[in-house]
């Protein structure tokens, strides 16, 4: 585990950025979003929710697939270069990391999307424990524990310390590399590197314990420092307190009964959709801020002599999404609204072992200009179900 004082976070970020591109929450024009760490940026690791999810880092809002000459007598196709260098995404919350798992099942299933795969392989995800979950959060309803966000490594701020723990080999290699930079830059007086190992106790129960003889605590003058067992206890207590806050949030107890693979067959034809969709403006904001929405378009950009074919996020909420020369299977906003929620709560789970394509991040609650959101839909059907009994 790496520990560094919070007043040295910028030095930690410099250390990471000296080795690879670093993407993390930064503030721009009053909005916090994931962006590249460069000089002058305002890092906002303290922000709970970025406006958009972190999916851009792996599935960019727009990316070139290939370029193509326009000469129809001599066409040639040049594929775009795949991501081939490591980069770090620091500070992804549990909901957004679950979002990546949802996207993985789409883009990494056969046939694999090479562009996404290259980013996933090169990207190092450093998750971050949520310190101040909001009232609009409901990740717990989808089985996400915001104090155990996962990723290749997990970061947590407790008091004046930032702790980073590796979750797998990729995370471990990352932490070792960063520690070396910190030590060589003699910035490591507050940096402690410590291994935790999985051990199985005699009664067979698994527990995580410190492996004392592998401690690699290093201080500025190079002398070894004893790892602070108090830190582990502080971390544990901190996570416990966050979990208690989470449990009290109003939406966390949302019930998904009657959705997923157990959805009644007549859900599609329910008259409730007609009532629910009415305020929808078809602006598509919900799909753009969503960590799991993966619909995309493929379009041309004319460069003059050549054409760049790129893909970009699209939204099932738009009227021309399914428009063909001979007609449109979804002519009304009700149909498009229904598609979005049926996809997240029914179709995706049917195709993916019951896993929902919602992570409870609550961005649609925060951002919909008409106060429509997935919670409203779930609750409306729950209410209807109770009335019909």
């Amino acid at each position: 585990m790496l520990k560094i004082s919070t007043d040295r976070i910028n030095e930690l970020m410099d250390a990471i950025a000296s080795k690879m591109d670093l993407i993390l929450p930064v503030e721009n024009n009053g909005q916090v979003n994931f962006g590249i760490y460069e000089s002058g940026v305002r890092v906002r690791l303290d922000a709970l929710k970025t406006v958009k999810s972190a999916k851009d880092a792996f599935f960019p809002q727009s990316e070139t697939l290939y370029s193509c000459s326009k000469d129809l007598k001599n066409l040639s196709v040049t594929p775009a270069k795949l991501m081939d260098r490591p980069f770090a995404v620091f500070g992804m919350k549990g909901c957004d990391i679950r979002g990546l798992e949802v996207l993985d099942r789409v883009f990494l299933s056969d046939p694999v999307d090479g562009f996404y795969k290259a980013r996933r392989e090169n990207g190092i995800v450093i998750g971050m424990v949520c310190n101040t979950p909001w009232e609009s959060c409901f990740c717990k309803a989808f089985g996400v524990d915001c104090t155990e966000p996962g990723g290749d490594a997990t970061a947590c701020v407790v008091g004046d310390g930032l702790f980073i723990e590796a979750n797998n080999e990729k995370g471990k290699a990352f932490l070792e590399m960063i520690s070396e930079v910190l030590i060589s830059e003699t910035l490591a007086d507050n940096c402690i590197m410590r291994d935790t190992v999985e051990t199985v106790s005699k009664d067979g129960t698994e527990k995580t314990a410190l492996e004392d003889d592998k401690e690699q605590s290093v201080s500025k003058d190079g002398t070894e420092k004893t790892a602070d067992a108090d830190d582990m206890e502080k971390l544990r207590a901190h996570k416990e307190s966050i979990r208690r806050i989470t449990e009290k949030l109003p939406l966390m107890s949302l019930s998904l009964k009657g959705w997923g693979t157990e959805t009644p067959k007549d859900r599609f034809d329910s008259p409730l959709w007609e009532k629910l969709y009415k305020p929808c403006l078809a602006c598509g904001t919900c799909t753009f801020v969503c960590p799991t929405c993966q619909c995309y378009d493929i379009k041309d950009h004319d460069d003059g002599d050549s054409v760049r074919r790129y893909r970009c996020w699209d939204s099932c909420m738009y009227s021309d999404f399914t428009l063909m020369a001979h007609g449109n299977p979804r002519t009304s906003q009700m149909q498009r609204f229904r598609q979005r929620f049926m996809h997240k709560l029914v179709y995706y789970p049917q195709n993916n072992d019951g896993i929902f394509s919602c992570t409870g991040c609550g961005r649609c609650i925060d951002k919909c200009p008409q106060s429509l959101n997935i919670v409203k839909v779930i609750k409306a059907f729950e209410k209807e179900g109770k009335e019909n009994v």
Partner: protein
Amino acid sequence: MCKCSDTLIPLPGVITAITEETPDVKTFRINAPEGGKLFEHMPGQCAMLCVPGVGEAMFSITSSPTNKEYQEFSIKRCGELTNCLHGLSVGDMVTVRGPYGNHFPVESELKGKDLIFIAGGIGLAPLRSVINYVADNRADYGNVDIVYGSRSMDDLVRYQEITEEWAKRERTNVYLTIDRPQDGWNGHVGFVPSYVKELNLNAAATVLLCGPPIMIKFVLAGLLELGFSKERIYTTLELRMKCGVGKCGRCNIGSKYVCKDGPVFKFTQIDELPDEF
């Protein structure tokens, strides 16, 4: 499979022949620049054709996989991209990626069966691939009936091997019809659904049905009246597509993606889908 480096990256293909089938349907023969086919496919599968700077769309591959020299696409002029394609000449290049989707079960469920092909208008294009596959493996299949109709004589896509050669073969009947009487037409006049009912077809046969949605609806109703089983009636569906591999989220009907789980469906499968296509 495609020799493409990634499923979204196409290959350049050359138009080596263009046949004007009707006033608004042309058949394009496509080869790899170095000759031969761009990829292998099965009957019923589709591919994405693109004119760079204009657009890209999914088309059924109308030639049979038994054709070892080239692939063909019969394309009706009805939008921006198809208009542009109709303006191209032999020697012009397009990009192609595929093949995508499932295919008619020519090697399993259709084998040994009596087959009835029913097509309306451009709907003959996807069926032509199967019809010619059956022709080239004739011993593997039973009797073949082909019922094909269009609005007028001019709109009949007269694939020569079907309307001329097939009609002369044993265990094979070809029935053509047009919607309204026309000078110079001595054949049957009437819509495909009513013609199908008149023909006294074998209700134990397997049906492959393609055409405009309204025709499919009425033919299906007629076939069910005649005692045909939905389990043995196949059709192809078409929705807007961008990726071709079930990821861009565009062509789903319920949890099925037409590009990946289709385009070939049995009517028993279609009954399971929400009514949104």
